[in-house]
C-alpha cells in the first residue's frame, strides 16, 4: 500500500469493513456473508498512533458442524478483503462456536494458509471446491430463468427452451444473476448465446433438453432450500441474528413474507 500524506488518510470505519465483507460469499449458498447474518461483530481501533487501524471481526455460522472447509474459506476470504482495505494495519478474524474454531482461528492468526491450517486433512487447495459450487450456482440461475419463461408462456414447450438465447430473457433480477454466474464461469454473455448449457457452455441436443432442465431444477431446489434452512438455523441459534439477514426471494415460502397467508394446494386424488 502506498502511504498517504499525513492528514489525508481516510480512517477505516466499521461501514468500510462491512462493505468489504459484502464481497465475501458463502460458496455453497452463493450469497454474501453479510446478507446471511454470518458477521457477528466488527470493531475498528486506531493503532500505531492513529496511522493505521486494527480490525477485529467475529463470524458465526448456523451450526457447530457446518462444513469446516466452507467455514475456513469464508473466514480466510474475510481476512483477505479487510487486509486489502486502505488504512488497515492489522486484522483479526475469528470464527465463533464451531467445532474447528480453535484450529481455524489459530491458522488465520498465523497466516498458515489452508494446508498449514488443516495439515494431513488438506490435500491441495479449496479451489476445486469453489468451482463445484460456482457451477451449481450457474445451473440454478439458468433453471430459474428458463422456468420463468415456461411459467410466463403456457404455449412454450419444455423442448423449446433448448433454443432460448440470452437475448430472449426479460430484464430483471434473475437474468442479472444468470449473467453474473456465467461471467464467473467464463461463459460468454452475448445475446445469441444459448441459455441452457452445461458447465462448459455447450448447449444440449434437443432430446436431452427436458432431462437437463429437470436436473438443473433439482440443483436450484437444493440451493434455495439450504439457503433458507441455514438462515433459519442461525436465527434459532443466535437470538436477534435475523435482523442481520437480507430477505431472499428465491425459494421463499409465503410464511417468510405473509405469516398468515394459507397455502393453496391441489385437490387430493387417488
Amino acid at each position, binding site marked *: 500500500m502506498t502511504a498517504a500524506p499525513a492528514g489525508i488518510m481516510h480512517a477505516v470505519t466499521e461501514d468500510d469493513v462491512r462493505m468489504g465483507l459484502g464481497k465475501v460469499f458463502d460458496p*455453497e449458498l452463493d450469497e454474501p456473508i453479510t446478507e446471511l447474518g454470518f458477521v457477528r461483530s466488527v470493531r475498528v481501533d486506531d493503532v500505531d498512533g492513529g496511522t493505521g487501524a486494527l480490525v477485529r471481526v467475529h463470524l458465526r455460522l*448456523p*451450526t*457447530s*458442524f457446518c*462444513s*469446516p*472447509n466452507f467455514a475456513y474459506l469464508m473466514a480466510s476470504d474475510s481476512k483477505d478483503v479487510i487486509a486489502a482495505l486502505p488504512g488497515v494495519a492489522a486484522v483479526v478474524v475469528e470464527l465463533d*462456536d464451531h*467445532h474447528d474454531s480453535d484450529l481455524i482461528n489459530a491458522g488465520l492468526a498465523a497466516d498458515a494458509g489452508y494446508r498449514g491450517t*488443516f495439515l*494431513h*486433512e*488438506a*490435500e*491441495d*487447495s*479449496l479451489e*476445486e*471446491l469453489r468451482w*463445484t459450487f460456482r457451477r451449481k450456482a450457474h445451473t440454478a440461475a439458468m433453471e430459474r430463468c428458463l*422456468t420463468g419463461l*415456461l411459467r410466463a408462456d*403456457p*404455449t*412454450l*414447450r*419444455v*423442448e423449446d427452451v433448448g433454443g432460448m438465447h440470452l437475448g430472449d430473457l426479460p430484464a430483471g433480477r434473475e437474468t442479472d444473476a444468470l449473467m453474473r454466474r456465467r461471467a464467473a464461469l467464463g461463459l460468454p454473455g452475448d445475446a445469441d448465446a444459448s441459455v441452457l448449457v452445461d458447465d462448459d457452455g455447450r448447449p444440449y441436443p434437443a432430446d436431452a433438453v*427436458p*432431462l437437463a*432442465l*429437470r*436436473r438443473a*431444477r*433439482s*440443483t436450484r*431446489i*437444493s440451493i*434455495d*432450500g*439450504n439457503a*433458507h*434452512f441455514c438462515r*433459519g*438455523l442461525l*436465527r*434459532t441459534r443466535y437470538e436477534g441474528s435475523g435482523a442481520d439477514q437480507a430477505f431472499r426471494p428465491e*425459494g421463499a*415460502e*409465503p*410464511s417468510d413474507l405473509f405469516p398468515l397467508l394459507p*397455502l*393453496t*394446494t*391441489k*385437490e*387430493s*386424488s*387417488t
Partner: protein
Amino acid sequence: MYSKDGENYFIVDAHIALWDARPENQRNIHGKQFIDCFYDYHRNLSPESEVWSYEDYLYQGGERLMKDLFTDGYVDHAIFQPAYLGEFYHRGFGQTEEAYGLAAAHPDKLTYNHCFDPRNGEAGLDQLRADHERMGFTGVKLYTAEWHGESRGYKLSDPWASRYFEECRALGIKNIHVHKGPTIRPLDRDAFDVSDVDHAATDFTDLNFIVEHVGLPRLEDFCWIATQEPNVHGGLAVAMPFMHTRPRYFAQIIGELIYWIGEDRIQFSSDYALWTPRWLVEQFVDFQIPEDMTEYAPLTIEQKKKILGLNAAKMYDIPVPADLRLPDAEETATGPRQPERADLASAQ
C-alpha cells in the same frame, strides 16, 4: 396404524434412535455441540406445540420412546439406526445395548439395526461377526462423518468399506443405511458428496443402500445417483419436518423424489428423538403439492401409504395386514419415473 377419512395407513418409522446426550456422557465440547445442533434443528422445524425442553431432549429412555412412537405416534413398527459417536460421548451416542434389549423385548414392534466403522479394520470385522451372531440384525447404519482418532470421516468407496460390505453379504445383512455427514477428509472436496454411495451400490447390487436425509443438503446429487441405481433408496429423516415450516420446499423434495426414484423407494421416518412421529404422520396424510407447482402431480393416497410404511415393511419383511398392502407401481427400475412430468406445459 393411522386412520383418516376412511383410509388406513400402516406406519413404519424407519429411522429412530435411543440416545444419551446427558452431560455425564459427554466426552468433550463436541458432545455438547452435537446435541445442541440437533436441538436447534428440533426447535427450528417443529410446530410450537411439539417443542421439547432441552432437558427432555438430552435423554428419553425406553419407556418414553415406546409411548411417543406406539401409544401416541401411530407407529406400527420402528427401526433403530444407531450412531456411535465414540469420540464425542463416553458410552456412545446411540445406546446400542439398550436399543437391542428393547427390540428383543418387543420384536413385533421394533427392529434393531447395528452400526460398524470400516476404519476398525480386521478387529472390527471380528466384532461385526460376533455382534451379528448375538443380535442377528439385517441392517446397519453407517455415519460417514464419524470421527475416529486422526480421521474425521470416511467414504463408502474406501477399500476397507468394501471388505465390510463383503462381510455383510456373507452374514445376510442386506440393508445399508447411510447418513452422509459433513465428512471432513479429504477436506478439499464437498463434505456432503454422495458419489461414494454410487460406487458402493454399483459394486454391491444385492445390497440395499438407503441414503438418509435423501442426501440433503445435496438432494440433486442424491437424485441423480439414485435414479441410475435400482438398489439406492431415499430415507426421509430430517426431510419430513420441512413439511410444517417450509411446505413449498418439502413439496419440491417429494416431487423430485417421485420423479427421479419413484414411489416404491422412499421411506418415512421421524428421526426420533429429533422429532416425534405423531404430528409428522398427521401432517403428511393431509399434505398436498401447492397448486402452482404444475411440474408435479398431486400426491396420491397410495403414494402416501407406501412412503409412510409399506416400502420399509417390504424391505424388512415386516408383516402387513392383507387389506393394507399395495402392489408396486409399474415403473422403470432406472431413470425418471414420470418422464411426461419433465414438461411443465404438459402438466397444465
